[in-house]
């Protein structure tokens, strides 16, 4: 079954707006949560990642919010730009028993209109 559930499947945002993508998981052993950005014809590239000992991490216009009790985490893209148009994947890793194996969500296709 899908270990990491991601929504929405697609998202359209106006330039300058905020893009929000949500993910949920069930396995409480997950202890590393990265977000990847993928452009057509390319492999996923790491955008930002968080560990469960913090509730928020910010890098430039990208912020991860993490809610351990709800087993949810989300990506916020502030001041969204047309160049942000891509597919975004959340993922999770259980570094204890399956170190190096990432479980990916199904992806969110983001379109930012100029």
């Amino acid at each position, binding site marked *: 079954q899908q270990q990491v559930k991601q929504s929405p499947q697609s998202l359209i945002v106006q330039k300058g707006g905020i893009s929000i993508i949500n993910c949920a998981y069930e396995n409480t052993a997950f202890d590393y949560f990265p977000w990847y950005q993928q452009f057509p014809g390319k492999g*996923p590239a790491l955008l930002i990642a968080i560990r469960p000992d913090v509730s928020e991490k910010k890098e430039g216009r990208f912020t991860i919010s993490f809610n351990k009790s709800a087993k949810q985490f989300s990506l916020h893209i502030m001041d969204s730009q047309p160049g942000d148009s891509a597919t975004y994947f959340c993922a999770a890793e259980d*570094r204890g028993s399956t170190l190096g194996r990432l479980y990916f*969500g199904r992806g969110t296709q983001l379109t930012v209109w100029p």
Partner: protein
Amino acid sequence: DAGVTQSPTHLIKTRGQQVTLRCSPKSGHDTVSWYQQALGQGPQFIFQYYEEEERQRGNFPDRFSGHQFPNYSSELNVNALLLGDSALYLCASSPRQGAGYGYTFGSGTRLTVV
């Protein structure tokens, strides 16, 4: 500094045939993981190689096999191809086994089975 290199970039095979995909990891990386990404889906973990041994395996049949060479490069072999094997095959390398140590993906090999 070259990143992860995968070859070939595209491949068309007939059902029942066998295929070999190749991956050269990023310089300084010794761990290689393979993922299958079906159209419109997130990557699914196939297996991981470290020190020339398969360390972990996802939910893929024995038709999927791999190898890692002393120079850390890797091959993915798929026997008795099925139409459902059509996908983008991604290789990711890292300097250690955990994804948090700098997982880097290649651009993938697009396999089409007809």
